[in-house]
């Protein structure tokens, strides 16, 4: 996968400016097209992703305070709608739901088995407020689930119908490191529409540009005005400034090589002493895709169903083989997660599996920090004279 461009560019249409009413019109236009609009909204003390009936439900005036194992919503002094970074969910909750029925099977009186494929008739989603890191995460899951020899058709049906409205980051959190991963804060490719929120003396507005013909078509139907130099400059500078305010960094080395060369590192013992192997990081991670299968029957025993549900490499059963799990120690399970995410993902799917969203840091109950672990592995490798 190519690294995200640091400056944005479009094929679709000229950029334009929407105000808050324009944003509202955008939601209504997408709903009128039969789409289920999903976006951020303040609920239960968090910024969650949920179906929006109008743009008024966006978390205007809310920000977040993030740290290892710490998440708080905070009132802002302004009315920004997208001044929050990654929340507890990601778009995989919609594109790759926790539980999916894959097929059903029935056994007739003669013992004959008939199998029925599940019809994939998902909602036609529009995702409003896809952060650049999450935009990349979607592309990464696309590669895993659609890019190989076998396609996950259920995912494909949800994904190909989804309309993506990216919102560039101007307010990175303390746990963000998208710059290190090359995924933000400017939006990379893959969006239908990209917005940059601008809030200054000239008002609250959104610089908008289309990335696809459908995006251009939707934009054209909204109340808007042509982009002006002031808005463009403000948007550009805000994104540039955000790039300089990342709360975290990854060591600037070849992470794939670092992880391949540190399988025996002492650091794994250190992190294993802290890790609860709860799997929160895998649930919160926008790219973690692992699933397991469940076979169920009804009481007659003649109707069976195959379900897939999220699984985690922290689960002991995940690597079960014959007598027991291959990865029985917490050390090996944390190592599996980190080496996969930053290292072997490249071998398997051609890119890193990490987008720098920081969710795994925030939602870890003991505040294990993926960037800190990577730095520690790097330091240990340096001290042993290994590759830098």
């Amino acid at each position, binding site marked *: 996968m190519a690294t995200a461009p640091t400056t944005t560019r479009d094929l679709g249409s000229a950029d334009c400016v929407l105000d808050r009413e324009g944003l509202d019109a955008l939601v209504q236009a997408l709903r009128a097209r039969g789409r289920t609009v999903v976006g951020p909204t303040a609920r239960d003390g968090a910024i969650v992703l949920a179906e929006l009936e109008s743009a008024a439900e966006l978390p205007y005036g809310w920000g977040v305070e993030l740290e290892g194992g710490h998440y708080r919503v905070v009132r802002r002094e302004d009315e920004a709608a997208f001044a929050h970074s990654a929340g507890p969910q990601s778009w995989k909750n919609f594109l790759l739901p926790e539980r999916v029925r894959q097929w059903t*099977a029935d056994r007739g009186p003669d013992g004959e088995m008939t199998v029925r494929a599940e019809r994939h008739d998902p909602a036609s989603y529009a995702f409003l407020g896809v952060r650049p890191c999450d935009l990349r995460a979607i592309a990464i899951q696309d590669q895993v689930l659609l890019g190989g020899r*076998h396609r996950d058709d259920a995912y494909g049906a949800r994904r190909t119908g989804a309309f993506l409205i990216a919102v560039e980051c101007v307010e990175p959190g303390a746990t963000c490191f998208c710059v290190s991963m090359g995924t933000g804060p400017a939006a990379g490719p893959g969006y239908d529409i990209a917005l940059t929120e601008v809030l200054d003396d000239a008002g609250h507005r959104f610089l908008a540009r289309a990335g696809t013909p459908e995006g251009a078509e939707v934009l054209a139907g909204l109340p808007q005005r042509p982009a002006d130099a002031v808005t463009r400059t403000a948007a550009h500078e805000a994104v540039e400034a955000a790039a300089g305010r990342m709360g975290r960094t990854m060591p600037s080395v070849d992470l794939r090589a670092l992880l391949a060369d540190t399988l025996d590192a002492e650091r794994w013992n250190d992190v294993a002493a802290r890790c609860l192997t709860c799997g929160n990081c895998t649930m919160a991670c926008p790219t973690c895709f692992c699933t397991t299968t469940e076979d169920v029957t009804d009481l007659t025993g003649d109707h069976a169903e*195959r379900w897939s549900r999220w*699984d985690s490499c922290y689960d002991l059963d995940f690597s079960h083989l014959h007598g027991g799990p291959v990865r029985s120690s917490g050390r090996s399970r944390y190592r599996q997660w980190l080496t*996969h995410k930053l290292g072997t993902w490249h071998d398997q799917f051609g890119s890193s599996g990490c987008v720098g969203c920081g969710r795994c840091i925030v939602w870890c109950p003991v505040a294990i920090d993926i960037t800190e672990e990577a730095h520690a592995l790097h330091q240990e490798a340096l001290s042993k004279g290994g590759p830098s």
Partner: protein
Amino acid sequence: MTAVPLPYRVVDTRPETADTVTIRLEPVHETLPSFAPGQFAMVYAFGVGEIPVSVAGILPDGGLLHTIRGVGAVSGALYALRPGATVGMRGPFGTSWDLPLAAGDDLLVVAGGIGLAPLRPLVLAALAAPQAHGRLNVLVGARSPEDLLYRDELDGWARPYRGVAVDRPSAGWKGRVGVVTTLLDEAPFTPAETTAFVCGPEVMIRATARELLHRGVRPDRVLVSLERNMRCATAHCGHCQLGPLLLCRDGPVVGYDRAEPLLAVREL
């Protein structure tokens, strides 16, 4: 073909050992794409679950043989099937034994226990094309003479060499007692011009590969079949990872040049 199982009917069952049976399956309607030796199918026992099973036989009419050891919930259910029952089948999945790679080479087929099953179609393919390669050696390790698979076929596989070593002999056993690698001294092969195909428990694979490398067989010419937990077989579920490999996609057959460093890391 790969996401939803196709019904296959059990048309024959042949007991191999006290806990192992070979079942012959034929498609009820549609047929899966053709399998290559070394590849596997996901076999579904109605309402119980699905397990990966390598093909033990590829029949010209679209039928398949699977040798199943009834030790778990799903394999136990499959073991108990009688002719007429139907199972669900997905596949073919994974990499195959690369017989063309071995063109002109001596062949060394080394099997341990149920590991002989995935090698059976390879042996048959090699026997069918004797001009394509050098000497065919089949080395089989088993727990006891009673645990040997395909007993009535084994004698026909000596082209020129077929050896069996058992861990525990029973009365009247005239063959070798010991690990399968002890047979290497008897098998006629030129290490530098040999391709080996190894399948069995991982400890046996490592010991065999180490011995073959010591004798001068090239690491990339030692093909081994590896196993990890497998759920989807379509490279979407993440369970079968072995470091950089997804064994349902990049395996189960892997060159030992790639496998050795991975198998050396504990709990990888």
